[in-house]
């Protein structure tokens, strides 16, 4: 198994607060890794460190054998932020085509395809500021998918989407992974966790679990992932107290 992302002893401080306390993890090529944890646990910070936009205190993050954020990686890593970061005063198509134009070899046709892929074909000519929240999130996603990056970091990509659409998007993520793309997806929704190859559970800036969904279920002795995580957290708290 080829490591696409290697995080070693990563420490991040934001302001005076230590957000990540010496995190270690390895993410292999062509997999979907789920990043789970309560809000404020450090998921977004870890993703930002992998993309290379986060100033880190110590430790290293390597992506495709290069330091995170280095120039060659900007062609190969796609990043979807949780808050939509597209132009509200452009249409969906104009946004997708603009982001496409920033990458060599990505065409307008690819941009239109990405818009169709997220189910916005009918709204392609609408200005983003006239869309619903769920549609804006999808337009945002289309702009991240458009360059077909080798590594995709998606912060809460399916929030606010209806179940049918969420299912569609997850099928697409699985398809991309099957074609060799490495995906890191953060989520609050536990039924999505079951569709990942591997899960990282983060709490208070520390990795509590790093395993396949099946192994996590087995070690916690329950089929319900939500329950499994509760048990893992409880076991850890008990160990700390003892």
């Amino acid at each position, binding site marked *: 198994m080829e490591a696409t992302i290697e995080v070693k002893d990563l420490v991040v401080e*934001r*302001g005076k607060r230590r957000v990540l306390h010496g995190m270690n993890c390895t993410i292999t090529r062509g997999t979907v890794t789920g990043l789970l944890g309560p809000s404020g646990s450090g998921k977004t910070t870890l993703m930002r460190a992998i*993309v*290379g*936009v*986060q*100033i880190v205190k110590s430790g290293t993050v390597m992506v495709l054998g290069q330091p995170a*954020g280095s*120039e060659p990686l*900007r*062609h190969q*890593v796609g*990043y979807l*932020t949780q*808050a*939509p*970061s*597209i*132009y*509200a*005063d*452009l*249409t969906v198509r*104009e946004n997708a085509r*603009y*982001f496409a*134009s*920033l*990458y*060599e070899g990505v065409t307008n046709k690819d941009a239109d395809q990405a818009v169709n892929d997220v189910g916005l074909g009918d709204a392609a000519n609408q*200005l983003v500021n006239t869309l619903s929240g769920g549609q804006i999130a999808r337009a945002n996603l289309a*702009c991240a998918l458009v*360059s077909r990056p080798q590594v995709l970091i998606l912060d809460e990509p399916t929030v606010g989407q209806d179940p049918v659409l969420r299912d569609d998007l997850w099928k697409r993520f699985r398809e991309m992974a099957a074609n060799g793309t490495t995906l890191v997806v953060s989520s609050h929704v536990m039924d999505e966790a079951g569709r990942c190859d591997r899960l990282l559970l983060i709490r208070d800036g520390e990795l509590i679990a790093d395993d396949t969904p099946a192994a996590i279920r087995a070690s916690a002795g329950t089929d319900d992932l939500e329950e499994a995580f509760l048990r893992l957290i409880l076991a850890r708290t008990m160990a700390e107290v003892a």
Partner: protein
Amino acid sequence: MSMRRLISTTGRILRQIRHDHRTIGMLVAVPVLLLTLIYFMFDGQERIFDGVGLIMLGIFPFVIMFLITSIAMLRERTSGTLERLLTTPMGKLDLLFGYGIAFGLAAAVQAAIASGVAYWLFDLDTFGPRWLVIVIACANAVLGVALGLFCSAFARTEFQAVQFMPVVVVPQFLLCGLFVARGEMAGWLQAISDAMPMTYAVEALEEVGLHEQATATLWRDLGIVAGCIVVALTLAAATLRRRSP
């Protein structure tokens, strides 16, 4: 720098303006309305309008483009699009030059219309060629863009951004020689005036007003404005960080 990214960024910014009809309307109408006001203020005193009106043709684009750019760039920063762009192969200069070219083009249209109105409707009289007025107006607009790109880095909110207008623009406006001739100012005021780019833009316009041919002073002044644009863009590039805390 990449031609493809520069062109597509310029196009993207122009498309954003195109979708905003009221902004287009104001870009065209506001300088014309203000010129009209000035024309009637000096009704029957053509010689004064020839001086003041001419200088205004250079000042409007600077003020308007400074304001528009600082808000546009602040929006890039607060909406997260700037951070996103900096995770792509986009170069910092692709983005900054894109703004310079896009708003420079908008300013060229604006300056052409405003000068057209000034010359044909209000009989503005200059010894020098009219195209030079438009060139100086555009240089001034691009200077406004470059300073706006730089200043937006120091604003967190729109409230703060608009207040850079009085800080950056008004002193230049007061000291450029329009209200008090530069030679009659106290020495220290003149020194400040010497350090401000708008002084040279205004001087260049006065040269067009007084001489039939482009003078050496005019070219020197335009060169200084161009130099200030390069300095402001370099400083603006330094405020674009790919990593943040």
